[in-house]
């Protein structure tokens, strides 16, 4: 190591340049690359595309950290409400608005303190996280299912069918999401289900457009025609060529759509159009927190931090997936 450094340094010292009569003929240059006998050793192990993508994802420290964080978050959201000694609406009026790690005289420990009705915030926060994640994931999965089927049909058939299907999407895009939520809350009991339905009515258009574009361009790609020319059955064509090329785009899209769904839920609950109280969600917890932010900042900061970190993790995981699934970025 230090030898190499010295050599590099020496090369830059003017007094140590090569003598003028130094003659370097062709014989002075020898091929020092790996020789033919060693070829077998340097052959990269044979791996499939998905294994290779997985390997590259695991090499990405940020993405792995995000995955670990999200797994921990999900576990907390699933387990804490089950094992907590409190229920979501159990009020302890003797000790409202208490700070974090508050232990009441009757022995109750409130890890994240209590709110103004003396409800345990630790329980409410994780139950809220569960609600928000549930809404976000179901919304995204429903949107993706509708969108992929719709978009794939439009892209596959093309022509006038595609034309009509796309005009329909443009109409839907023209309707503001809030109006649908408000209209739906008039005919349905407001709650988690109506929130998911409202979002699903408008939310699928993004993945439909994405899928249509992908299918349309894949259909005429020469590698698809080449596979067809080789005698591939439609089934093989779809599963081996179209789906892998489509799936990687959709996986990234799914990961990036979750944080925006979380944010939408939080926003709607914040303005009172979302999950009805007393059921907690990250949005209405933050909304309650703002009311008392001046005196008990942790009541706002805790849900805000969970929202931010969750969104950030999904976004960075999405970026990591995009890099891992694109063989052109392979290192």
């Amino acid at each position, binding site marked *: 190591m230090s030898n190499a450094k010295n050599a590099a340094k020496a090369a830059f010292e003017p007094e140590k340049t090569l003598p003028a009569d130094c003659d370097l003929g062709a014989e002075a240059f020898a091929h020092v690359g790996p020789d033919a006998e060693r*070829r077998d050793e*340097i*052959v*990269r*192990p*044979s*791996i*499939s*595309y998905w294994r290779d993508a997985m390997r590259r994802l695991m090499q990405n420290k940020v993405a792995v950290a995000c995955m670990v964080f999200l797994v921990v978050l999900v576990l907390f959201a699933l387990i804490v409400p089950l094992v907590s000694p409190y229920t979501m609406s159990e009020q302890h009026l003797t000790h409202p608005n208490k700070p974090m790690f508050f232990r009441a005289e009757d022995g109750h420990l409130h890890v994240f303190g209590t709110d103004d009705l003396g409800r345990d915030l630790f329980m409410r926060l994780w139950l809220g996280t569960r609600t928000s994640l549930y809404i976000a994931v179901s919304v995204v999965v429903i949107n993706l299912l509708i969108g992929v089927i719709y978009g794939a049909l439009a892209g596959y058939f093309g022509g006038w069918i595609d034309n009509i299907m796309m005009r329909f999407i443009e109409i839907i895009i023209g309707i503001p999401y809030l109006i649908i939520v408000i209209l739906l809350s008039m005919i349905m009991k407001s709650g988690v289900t109506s929130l998911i339905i409202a979002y699903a009515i408008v939310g699928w258009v993004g993945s439909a457009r994405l899928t249509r574009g992908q299918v349309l361009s894949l259909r005429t*790609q*020469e*590698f698809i*025609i*080449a*596979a*067809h*020319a*080789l*005698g*591939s*059955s439609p089934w*093989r064509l779809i599963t*081996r*060529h179209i789906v*892998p*090329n489509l799936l*990687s785009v959709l996986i990234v899209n799914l990961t990036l759509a979750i944080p925006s769904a979380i944010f939408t839920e939080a926003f709607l609950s914040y303005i009172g159009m979302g999950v009805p109280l007393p059921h907690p969600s990250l949005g209405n917890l933050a909304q309650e927190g703002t009311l008392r932010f001046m005196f008990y900042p942790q009541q706002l900061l805790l849900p805000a931090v969970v929202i931010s970190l969750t969104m950030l993790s999904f976004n960075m995981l999405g970026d990591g997936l995009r890099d891992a699934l694109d*063989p*052109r970025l*392979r290192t």
Partner: protein
Amino acid sequence: MNAEKLLEVSALCKYFHVSGGTLKAVDDVSFDIFRGETFGLVGESGCGKSTLGRVLMGIYGATKGKILYGGAELNPNRPGARFRYAKKAQIIFQDPYASLDPRMTVGSIIAEGMIIHGMYDARRRTERVTELLEMVGLNREHANRFPHEFSGGQRQRIGIARALAIEPEFIVCDEPISALDVSIQSQIINLLHDLQERLNLTYLFIAHDLNVVKYISSRIGVMYLGHLVELASSEELYARTLHPYSNALLSAVPIPDPRAEREKRRTILTGDVPSPIHTPPGCPFASRCPSACGRCHAEKPDLREVTPGHLVACHLT
């Protein structure tokens, strides 16, 4: 060259239904391809060469006309026919970047055809992939890489290996060198030439300039606006060009002698190519032909045999 007909094409048409009407990409084309020869197909871009190649491959069904392959009629709509035909006829594409699945390793790209046709067991297939890679001038380390790690010329070699993997006898080379650097073009041409001799292949070699085709083809067909306008052996076409369009194509080929090049009479075409949706009633070339007369605009010339083996579609000859 023996004169066994491998492929007989008669009155072949391929129309596409597009929003503006019917697009006649290939219109009433007839010719034969003999076993072991290279049939060159030239014409400017958009004249229907790729479409013709793909119809011959059975990728597109013909709108009208007949294709006989080895004496048997090719009908890609019959179940299983397309699959059996794929084993005999393969295609090499123009764009070496778009023609390889970016998410498959080179090894699996080459092995795919063998898997589809149930050729060999897994171990023998791996050996075959190595053999094929070496046959096209790559080596075994390349099998586990992804296409984007290669240059255009190397990718084209991978495409050739994929086509050869299922041991076809007929290969459509759809402008295999148009997207490559000039320095690489001759390497690929030489490779195709060597492979033809080793494996006794028949080629339909598509190009948009005559220069490339001259070197490799035994016979040449010139296409214009979906029509075959001239067909002759390579030497005959250069020695006695009859169709004004072939003349214009030939005059665009540079002569490697500066004096001759300077004195050469160049035919520079003016006018527009008619839309293949609204084809003119007369000769398709009439709008640009320097020798067009009244008859040319009214009446479509048929492809006639002028001298043995030399066919041309022009009223002047």
